[in-house]
């Protein structure tokens, strides 16, 4: 505790640093939940659509139609919170944008293009119901997940650039010699992007499946609910093992390329070989407390041999060492991510075995209960992974070039801005839930045409005249 207090007291951080970091964490944490629904949820929608056309299954088409409306609502919320994030990058982190915008801005410019396309094609898809021929309509939806993929990759490109900045040189404090392709495809781009894209499919799949699992627990085991469950759950279950594999590869990439972050993730204090894997545990007074140690496991995982040498926190020069609290946060978030990931893998395996044996869901109600909870678990996993990459980068904003305390704004009362943002986001969050629930209630009364969505054609035209 002493160490924490010392670190807090001794720092000459501007007063804006803490609220700015909290606000960024909060708004990004909110926004990242919406990402899977712009990227992977439209894919589920297209699967349902495809099935509906192929097998003439009217209920599959109904699912696709309803999902497209949910996607529109969530996309609109995501667009709005994305707009705020754009402002925040400038308002909270002028040191970052002002000094590095010439390089860091490029992925965002690319993202803008994809965002535009996605917005347009979501609208086309929603307007296209009953106006385009079934296959033309299906194909008009295909650009949506593709644009989502491009957009997500672009934003992750910007984030990974902060972890492994490349594609530019600094002269007199100015960015020069920009090589746009190297900025975008920086050293951390591939593993971060792949991990995030798969995470989006895991989250969207489990959350949507969870909704229908909850319905089935209440006794709605009709074809419609089963189909909604199966499309979403199968997608997540197929992606889950791939995600575990990619996550493992990504961790090793972090070991090689971002040793400081790896040391925090694995809670490695001193550089050594035969490093144990610490499960749980916190860093107090420079010592690891309360963890369970699995001998050699960290070294084995990092380099397939107990002799693998892992650079510890002591290898980081003193002024750039993360605080014990940041290390503990990164480490625990990493543990939570891995644990929830494996829990989801277990659920997926249960489903897989049952399906291979009997072409049916596991009959146990516990499976449905697990599936109903899986959505929340997947979101927890996503958030933890994001905490690992963000907190694990501290005290840097751009590793090796810009400290977070130099990136933050030095003017204004950020707490007030934060409180305003917080209040509005809470309202938006509650509003979104209310809207989705009222849509569901109306669907249960099965009157589809009365549900109005942003981007959708208006049904209230009668009252205009």
């Amino acid at each position, binding site marked *: 505790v002493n160490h924490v207090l010392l670190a807090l007291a001794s720092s000459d951080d501007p007063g804006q640093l803490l609220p700015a970091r909290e606000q960024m964490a909060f708004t990004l944490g909110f926004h990242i939940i919406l990402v899977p629904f712009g990227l992977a949820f439209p894919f589920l929608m297209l699967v349902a659509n495809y099935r509906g056309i192929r097998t003439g299954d009217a209920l599959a088409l109904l699912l696709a139609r309803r999902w497209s409306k949910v996607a529109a*609502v969530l996309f609109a919320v995501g667009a709005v919170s994305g707009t705020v994030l754009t402002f925040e990058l400038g308002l909270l982190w002028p040191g970052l*944008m002002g000094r590095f915008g010439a390089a860091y801005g*490029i992925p965002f410019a690319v993202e803008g293009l994809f965002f*535009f396309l996605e917005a347009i094609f979501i609208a086309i898809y929603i*307007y296209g119901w009953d106006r385009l021929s079934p296959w033309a309509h299906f194909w008009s939806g295909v650009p949506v997940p593709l644009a989502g993929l491009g957009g997500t990759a672009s934003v992750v490109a910007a984030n990974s650039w902060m972890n492994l900045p490349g594609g530019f040189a600094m002269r007199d404090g100015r960015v020069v010699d920009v090589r746009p392709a190297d900025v975008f495809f920086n050293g951390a781009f591939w593993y971060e992007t792949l991990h995030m894209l798969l995470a989006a499919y895991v989250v969207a799949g489990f959350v949507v499946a969870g909704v229908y699992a909850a319905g089935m627990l209440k006794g709605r085991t009709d074809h419609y609910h089963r189909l909604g469950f199966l499309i979403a759950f199968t997608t997540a279950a197929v992606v889950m093992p791939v995600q575990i594999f990619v996550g493992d590869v990504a961790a090793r990439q972090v070991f090689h390329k971002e040793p400081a972050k790896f040391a925090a993730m694995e809670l490695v204090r001193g550089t050594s070989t035969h490093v144990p894997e610490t499960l749980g545990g916190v860093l107090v007074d420079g010592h690891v407390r309360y963890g369970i140690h699995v001998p050699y496991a960290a070294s084995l995982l990092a380099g397939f041999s107990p002799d693998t040498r892992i650079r510890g926190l002591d290898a980081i020069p003193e002024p750039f060492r993360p605080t014990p609290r940041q290390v503990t946060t990164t480490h625990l978030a990493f543990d939570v991510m891995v644990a929830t990931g494996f829990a989801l893998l277990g659920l997926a395996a249960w489903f897989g075995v049952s399906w291979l044996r009997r072409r049916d869901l596991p009959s146990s109600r516990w499976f449905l209960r697990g599936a109903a909870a899986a959505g929340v678990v997947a979101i927890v996993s996503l958030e933890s992974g994001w905490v690992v990459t963000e907190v694990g980068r501290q005290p840097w904003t751009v590793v090796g070039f810009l400290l977070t305390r130099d990136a933050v704004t030095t003017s204004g009362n950020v707490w007030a801005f934060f409180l305003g943002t917080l209040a*509005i986001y809470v309202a938006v969050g509650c509003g979104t839930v209310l809207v989705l629930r009222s849509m569901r209630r109306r669907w249960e009364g099965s009157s589809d045409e009365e549900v*109005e969505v942003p981007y959708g054609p208006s049904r209230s035209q009668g009252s205009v005249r």
Partner: protein
Amino acid sequence: VSYLVAAGLVLGLLAYSMFGGADFGAGFWDLAAGGGVKGRARRALIDRSVAPVWEANHTWLIYCLVVMWTAFPGPFAAIMTTLYLPLGIAALGIVLRGSGFAFRKVTTRSDRARLSSTVFATSSVITPFAFGTVAGALASGRVPAGGNGPPVSSWINPSSLFTGVLAVALCAYLAAVFLAADAEGVMNRELRDWFSHRAWVAAMVTGALSVSGLFVAHADAERLYARLLDVAWPFVLLSIGLGLAALLLLGRMSPRLVRYLSSGAVGALVVAWAVAQAPYLLGTHAAITVSAAPHATLVTLSAIFVAAAAVVVPSLTLLYVLQQQARLEGE
């Protein structure tokens, strides 16, 4: 290349002020639509006009921010560290506006709808005002190149306050014309006349404001005033001409055509400002060529402009065709 990208930035501003402006203004009329059955019909028209495009228009704003921070990072940081108050208000206003509108459209309960409505309308007025003060601060050179300028006097000053009011008036004017045109589209004479009348009043107010703006500029932003009359006068004249033409023709010819005239008047005003301000980004300092990002960044941005035009235009056309079809079905 830096001028090319700066032109791209102005294009984004232009699009945002014309399309986004009409959106904001629709919120203004929502506030002034009155109650009862008539008010409901007016709001229904506003819903109908804003709905298909409401988010696409804010993309222009994001576009401007992204181009600004990538191409001119220094001035961008200067603006953000000085004008954080109005910009913060605008950012929160946009969230409130967007969500208020979306929820009004989906919610069925009338108390919730009324709350969403109020939120949507109020923030539609506050946001353009805040943006206007930012424009005024830039035009009168109140943002220092190094940033961290005075947080209050940079946007609470004659030029900024004036531009804020002007922005609200411009939005209301544009929206009234657009809504009158849409009312004609659905063959509703009563609504068309109501909005035409409002457009006429808004046009008078906006015109009077614009003229008095020259006096404000003369007193408060000398360089802008001199350059407006010196270099940018063709655009000033164009704006006045288009505005007058729109005013005269309003009520005599189809609002659908007047729409283009009034958009043009607003657009010309934005271009006049941009031309008067060149070659400086911050009104009186921070030259475009000096504060621009390295060449490769600017070239990349230009390439993205081209790609966007190539991909977005055809897909937008498809969407437009489908929307027209949807309208035809509704009629």
